């Protein structure tokens, strides 16, 4: 075995240029594959964080009727108590009680339909929190004559409003009566999702509750978890604890995102596989060439008694060694590349348009460590597959004929 490894190793360096070309092809192939995978993964991850952490949370609880009719009438009974109970759980970062209503925002010269989210500023500020999204102005710190409202930068643009502008909100109270009240824009926030930024406006729950006529009103409890992966378990437990309420987790709330993330790993490894498969054909060609050049030599090896299994393993081993070098170097380079790009970011051309779909225009590539391992495995597996045909060709040689070849 040791000799077989020694012979294989020396064999691959007989044609240094050829071996180096294949190694470089493997390195570049891996880097290309991992680059695209890391960009994809980062953009999905960013979208997940943006959607789940900043927008919908892991779990939302509503009155069952509220989903079809988001009105103040469908409140969560004992909402604040429930919220406190959930907050007491160890696996919960925050459970934020909210008063969510559909309404209309009017500036001096524009009208826009919005969703008003009455929030408890402290509850929403727990990391990752709403306060971190403020781009301009402040986060519920000002005490002014008018109640504060935080709106998205895009909504501000549409309403022709800025920090300090006065907006009139119109909505229904708990009895279904139309109520109007003035708010002052205290801050502008920004998220990548255009839809969210154009529609969601945040006010203090105490103020909106006063206006709708129920100081204790809660129409939504948004729960953010410690561990992303536990959302199903926790949602199930909450469903049992509060059977009269509708408990939904993020995968229910945004099935498209859930599905995209679910298949992401497979899609990415497939991407690597396709690229590496292309490189493997180059490898196959090279090994085949190296066999044709060595017909006589292989014949002599078999003539003197080297078993076909050993000749076969020798050729597979040669390919495995080349792929091991190419794979290792490729992974090291890819790792460095992803690290560096993660710091500097990749600017996506035409990225502005992507933001409408919730993707950021600057991406900070990242990839799971396991993915490097998987990609490395793909390289070795394909390299071994590529060597099987040439190795089979080699052992089909008849020693008597092979040694006669000049």
């Amino acid at each position, binding site marked *: 075995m040791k*000799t077989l490894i*020694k*012979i294989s190793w*020396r*064999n691959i360096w*007989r044609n240094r240029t050829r071996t180096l070309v294949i190694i470089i092809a493997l390195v570049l192939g891996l880097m290309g594959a991992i680059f695209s995978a890391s960009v994809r993964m980062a953009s999905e991850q960013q979208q997940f964080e943006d959607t789940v952490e900043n927008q919908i949370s892991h779990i939302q609880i509503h009155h069952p009727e509220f989903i079809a009719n988001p009105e103040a009438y469908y409140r969560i009974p004992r909402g604040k108590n429930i919220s406190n109970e959930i907050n007491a759980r160890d696996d919960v970062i925050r459970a934020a009680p909210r008063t969510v209503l559909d309404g209309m925002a009017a500036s001096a010269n524009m009208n826009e339909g919005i969703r008003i989210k009455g929030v408890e500023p402290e509850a929403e500020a727990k990391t990752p929190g709403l306060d971190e999204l403020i781009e301009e102005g402040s986060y519920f710190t000002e005490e002014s004559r008018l109640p504060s409202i935080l709106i998205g930068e895009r909504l501000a643009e549409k309403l022709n409003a800025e920090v300090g502008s006065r907006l009139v909100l119109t909505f229904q109270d708990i009895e279904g009566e139309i109520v109007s009240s003035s708010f002052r824009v205290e801050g502008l926030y920004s998220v990548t999702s255009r839809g969210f930024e154009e529609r969601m406006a945040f006010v203090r729950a105490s103020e909106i509750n006063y206006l709708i006529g129920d100081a204790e009103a809660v129409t939504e409890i948004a729960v953010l978890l410690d561990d992303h992966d536990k959302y199903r378990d926790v949602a199930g437990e909450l469903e049992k604890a509060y059977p009269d309420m509708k408990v939904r987790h993020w995968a229910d709330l945004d099935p498209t995102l859930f599905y995209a993330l679910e298949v992401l790993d497979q899609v990415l490894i497939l991407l690597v596989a396709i690229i590496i498969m292309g490189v493997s054909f180059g490898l196959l060609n090279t090994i085949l060439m190296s066999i044709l050049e060595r017909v*006589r*030599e292989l014949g*002599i*090896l*078999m*003539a*003197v*008694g*080297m*078993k*076909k299994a*050993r000749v076969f393993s020798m050729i597979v081993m040669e390919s495995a060694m080349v792929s091991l070098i190419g794979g290792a170097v490729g992974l090291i380079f890819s790792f460095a590349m992803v690290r560096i790009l993660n710091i500097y970011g990749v600017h996506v051309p035409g990225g502005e348009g992507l933001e409408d779909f919730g993707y950021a225009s600057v991406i900070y590539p990242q990839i799971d460590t396991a993915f490097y391992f998987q990609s490395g495995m793909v390289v070795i597996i394909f390299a071994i597959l590529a060597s099987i045909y040439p190795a089979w060709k080699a052992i089909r040689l*008849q*020693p*008597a004929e092979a*040694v*006669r070849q000049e």
Partner: protein
Amino acid sequence: METVIKTNNLSKVYTDTAVPVHALRSVSLEFRQGEFTAIVGPSGSGKTTFLNVVGGLDKPTEGHVIIDGVDIATMKESKLFDFRLRHIGFVFQAYNLIPVLTAIENVSFIMLLQNRPKAEMEERAKQMLEQVGLSDKLNVRPAKLSGGQQQRVAVARALASKPDFVLADEPTANLDTESAFNLLDIMAKLNKEENITLIFSTHDQRVIERARRVITLVDGAVDKDETFNREN
């Protein structure tokens, strides 16, 4: 003296050619322990075919090759690999050696395939290279050796594992006169010292004169089988 190889009515017909070629016609020969035999004859007389069939590299169309009481003509291929490894040494016309291995690694190679102990292997390989006069080239790769030196390494490799007999197919064909004589001297010396049966094919008159037994093949059949009393 003990019979090492016995061929019985050995025939080989190549049918993959336009006209069937009778490379061997009923060749019945016996080789005894320690013999130093040259198989001679013009090109196409069946020398190489005979050696290939006796060496288990090729199957006869008819007849038997009995080695150690076993008929290798009917042996399965997988067994034949092992048989060749344990019982037969080979020297080919040229490019015998594994180019990526040094002289001593090449000489050890067969013993290595036989799983001999490392110490024994090294000692024997060194001893053999010394016997063929290459003790200063132990760690040199074939590309750095002359044609004659390469063939001497090949002879050392073939004999190192102490096979029952050694087959050499035109070992001197690519060598100049001096190297050819030199190689033959070494082969003759080892034949005596190690008492190993040596059969080689050649059409080189200079070389034929060194053999103690000369078998002449013509059109695949034995034409003459002469024994000479030579001291080499």
